[in-house]
């Protein structure tokens, strides 16, 4: 009886250890991916194409600048075209321990607007990204589980520890270069968004996707974001990433 009880306990302990190991493996993989993508700053010019359910295409351009990395970064996204939207900006201040702060700047009315936490699940200006998708969250804000490999890639389940519109996500990470190639985000209703990262190339030693495509499963619309003039570790001033700077630079 004792032996049997002992065997059961050992089996459970082994299972827990195996799960923990896999979770630890998953975390380690994501950490490594995060580490490899790390840079002091980033700048690119993006072209955004929203392809609606009726295949109507709306194109916009923006300039993106980021200072810092993963959980401690600050980012500024400023639209440059078409003329009607030029100057509209979004400032994101990421935090390691909580959701980011976001402000939108609208030059035509000359004022900023704080994006409330409750509104982060809404679409980012008619694209298929949500405001939350624009956040850079630190690895420590999620719990991970390694799932069986798919197509030679790691498949990892990630569950947010902080409030989020998503209940869990699946990430596919290339074993060769630790780049995230695909993300599927699920909410209470099921699969909500699919993000595919394509056209990878190395920029200053960092494997970078030149094209990101997001699919809104419910609306059946797609947004394609292409990165041009991508630079890492460019000199950017800290005071550029403040609400005051939003007003000043408009």
């Amino acid at each position, binding site marked *: 009886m004792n032996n049997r009880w002992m065997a059961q306990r050992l089996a459970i302990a082994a299972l827990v250890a195996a799960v923990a190991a896999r979770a630890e493996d998953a975390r380690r993989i994501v950490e490594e991916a995060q580490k490899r993508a790390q840079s002091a700053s980033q700048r690119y010019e993006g072209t955004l194409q929203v392809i609606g359910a*009726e295949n109507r295409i709306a194109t916009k351009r923006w300039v993106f600048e980021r200072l810092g990395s993963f959980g401690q970064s600050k980012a500024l996204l400023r639209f440059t075209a078409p003329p*009607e*939207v030029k100057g*509209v900006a979004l400032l994101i201040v990421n935090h390691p321990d909580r959701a980011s702060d976001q402000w939108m700047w609208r030059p*035509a009315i000359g004022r900023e607007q704080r994006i*409330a936490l409750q509104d982060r699940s*809404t679409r980012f200006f008619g694209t298929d990204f949500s405001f939350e998708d624009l956040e850079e969250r630190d690895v420590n804000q999620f719990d991970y589980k390694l799932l069986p490999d798919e197509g030679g890639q790691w498949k990892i389940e990630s569950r947010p520890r902080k409030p989020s519109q998503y209940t869990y996500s699946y990430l596919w990470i290339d074993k060769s270069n630790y780049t995230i190639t695909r993300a599927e985000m699920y909410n209470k209703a099921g699969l909500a968004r699919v993000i595919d990262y394509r056209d990878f190339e190395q920029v200053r030693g960092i494997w970078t996707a030149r094209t990101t495509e997001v699919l809104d499963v419910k609306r059946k619309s797609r947004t394609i974001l292409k990165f041009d003039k991508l630079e890492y570790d460019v000199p950017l001033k800290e005071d550029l990433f403040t609400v005051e700077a939003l007003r000043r630079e408009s």
Partner: protein
Amino acid sequence: MILLRLISWPYARKHLSRILLTTAGIMLGVGVFVAMHTANQSVLAAFRSTIDRIAGRTQLQISAGEPGFDEEVLERVQNVAEVRAAAPVIEAAVSTDRGNLLILGVDMLGDRNLRNYDLEGADESIDDPLVFLAQPDSLMVTKTFAAERNLTINSRIPLRTMEGERVFVVRGIMKPGGLASAFGGNIAIMDIYAAQKVFGRGRKFDRIDVALREGVTLAEGIAKLRAALGPGFQIEPPSSRGEEFEATSRIYELGSDITSVFALFIGMFIIYNTFATAVTQRRAEIGILRALGATRGQIGALFLGESAITGLAGTLAGLVFGALTARAMTGYIGGLLEEVYGVAQSAASIEVAPWIAGAAIVMGLATSLTAGLIPARAAAMVDPVKALQKGSYLSPGEGENRTRRKWAMACAALSILALMLNRYTPVFYAGYLLAVMAAVLLAPSLSLRVSKWLRPVWKRIRPVEGALAADSLIQSPRRSSGTVAALMLSLALVISLGGLARSSYRSISEWMRIALNPDLFVTTAESATARSFVFPASLAGGLRKIEGVAEVQPMRSVRVMVKNAPVMLVAADIESLARRARLPAVAGDAERMYRRAAAGEGVILSENYARLHGVRYGEMIEIAAPEGILRLPVVGVVRDFSDQQGSILLSREMFSRYWHDDAANVFRIYLKPGASGAAVRQRILAAYGAQRRLFVLTNSDLRSYVIRVTDQWFGLTYIQIAVAVLVAVLGIVNALTVSILDRRREIGVLRAAGGMRRQIRQTVWMEALGIGAIGLVLGLSLGAAQLYYTLEIARRDLIGIDIGYAYPFPVALALVPAILGAAFLAALAPGESAVRGSLVEALEYE
């Protein structure tokens, strides 16, 4: 049932026109009741549906009256754990070429958590959400609105904003249904931050719409939000938005109910008159029935049954008439909602609610049964032997008159007693009823008395015809007393309503003379009461510099809730008001009252607010404000007509401190001696007209506006007067028709004895004029008492203002030819019927 079929039905068929006339009073009474309540209910239902559509999934709304509150409140609300979504809203009505348009300023990012905007096109997005947000001229309109004006995406609409006329661009068209069907599609969506700029709201929101997390009850949500925000905010479900409208419409309902009751009362007398005469006419028939074994109970039941059927027919006709009239009245009632939302509410469907139909049937039947009770009893008491003899039984016995007089005196004595104790509302209303009862009971005796006075006058005018007509009235008072009573009540109602209007206009004119004495008024809209737009306080300084301007009084009027009731809060420079437009104090000392209010040591209440809400001079009043609860004593009460719900006057400094708002709706401008109003007006328009939304009204413009609003208020009163006159005329037609039928034999004898047709016609006409004259004497007299009660009801329960007694002599004078003319016209057909009938048949009539 058999008796009804065998006896009553043939009689009814023979006297169809008379039956129709008899039912008319009930029809009108029931019709007015059904129309007013149905219109009210339909508009209210449509309004509630509009509130629901605008509210979407909103469970609670946070507001602080019309001034709104600072933006930072939103973050405090969003931080409450029980809140799932919170979205700020600004509401403003703007005038377009085809009526007003309600613009809803919403946060386009978060608002979809609460509201659905189903848009045209397969893509559910606005044409381009980023462009919509980036451009402050973006507007989303409904498909109905767009179709009416041939608008498509990117069409331009000019609107008058605080910065003058601006062109807006349609960047989204909402599909019909849901939010888009509110106010018949006259609703548009704008980004809230653009709306702040367009409507001059600074960094303020009108309200915040809130949805709670799953499992959180409304009570829990309210408690948590109150704890987070403090006591200065109203936190309630969207449905309570209808309360302001209900408070306004309640006044109309009460007014129309009084008319209904009067019309039914008059209808009761018409039925009584018809049946009382029918009993006399049919006494032979009753005698035969009794001789054949019919019991008294069966005879009584037969007449009561006839009365009930007549009442039911009148009620059903009234239901149809009311339902048809309700459609016309909804436009009028819906217009009242402009006060709440700035946009009139139309009712999509008009249905008579089961409770209204049920109440109408009960009222109609109760009236007809009550009216039929005395004639039925008289029929049951008919002695079969005497009934089969021929002769006159028309005159009521002196004993019957004496009993009536005794009852009348008792009623009168009790009503006087009730007057002495009239501070108790039920006692007051009982006294009113008793006074009317006394008048009704005295009507036959008074009618007889006036008929006797009339006889020599009538005889002098036409010796034969006049004497015959007067004798007919004297000898058969039962035939005409019901009509006289009905006419008396109708005319009393007309006098009281006319008096109410006259007294109101007189008091309003006096108020305007004192309170509205500035030379010019600078407003944000053509309508002086519109509050969608505001001016910055700094404009006052600019206006003061304009040549010819002696003094500028900035004033801010905002609707707030005090003790769960809407009231107009007026923030003004009280020291300047006291100097320039000092209203006399109804309670308190005027000098001290203005001094203390100017120092922020108290508030001045309007008489109607104080009375309707039972607030007395010296009491503390608590007003919830974003800064907290403002507690101030009532330092005085003035007679003020500026708002139907009442007003509270406080200093601008206090308002600014508690509402964080120093804007103004109106600048009252006094000119320097000798300055030309037209020239100063031009200078103001030249200085500011192009930069901002601004209107300059002259004193006479504003007074005309107030009179127009008052006319609109009394619009329903004029309808009530028309109904009262109509019922009175119907009563006369009925009485004469009955009289002619009743006197066919007498007329036949007259014609056989050589009476000329002209003479008979003139006899009928003079009898009609006699009824009219008696009705006028009694009605105009009772009207004096009725006016007292009406003014008292208005003071207590309707408008809360003691508007003073003024007998409407012009109305009374106008009624004399109107009623005599109507009586004459009403006599034409019966007069012709009297001379056209077969002489042989007439002599065989009995």
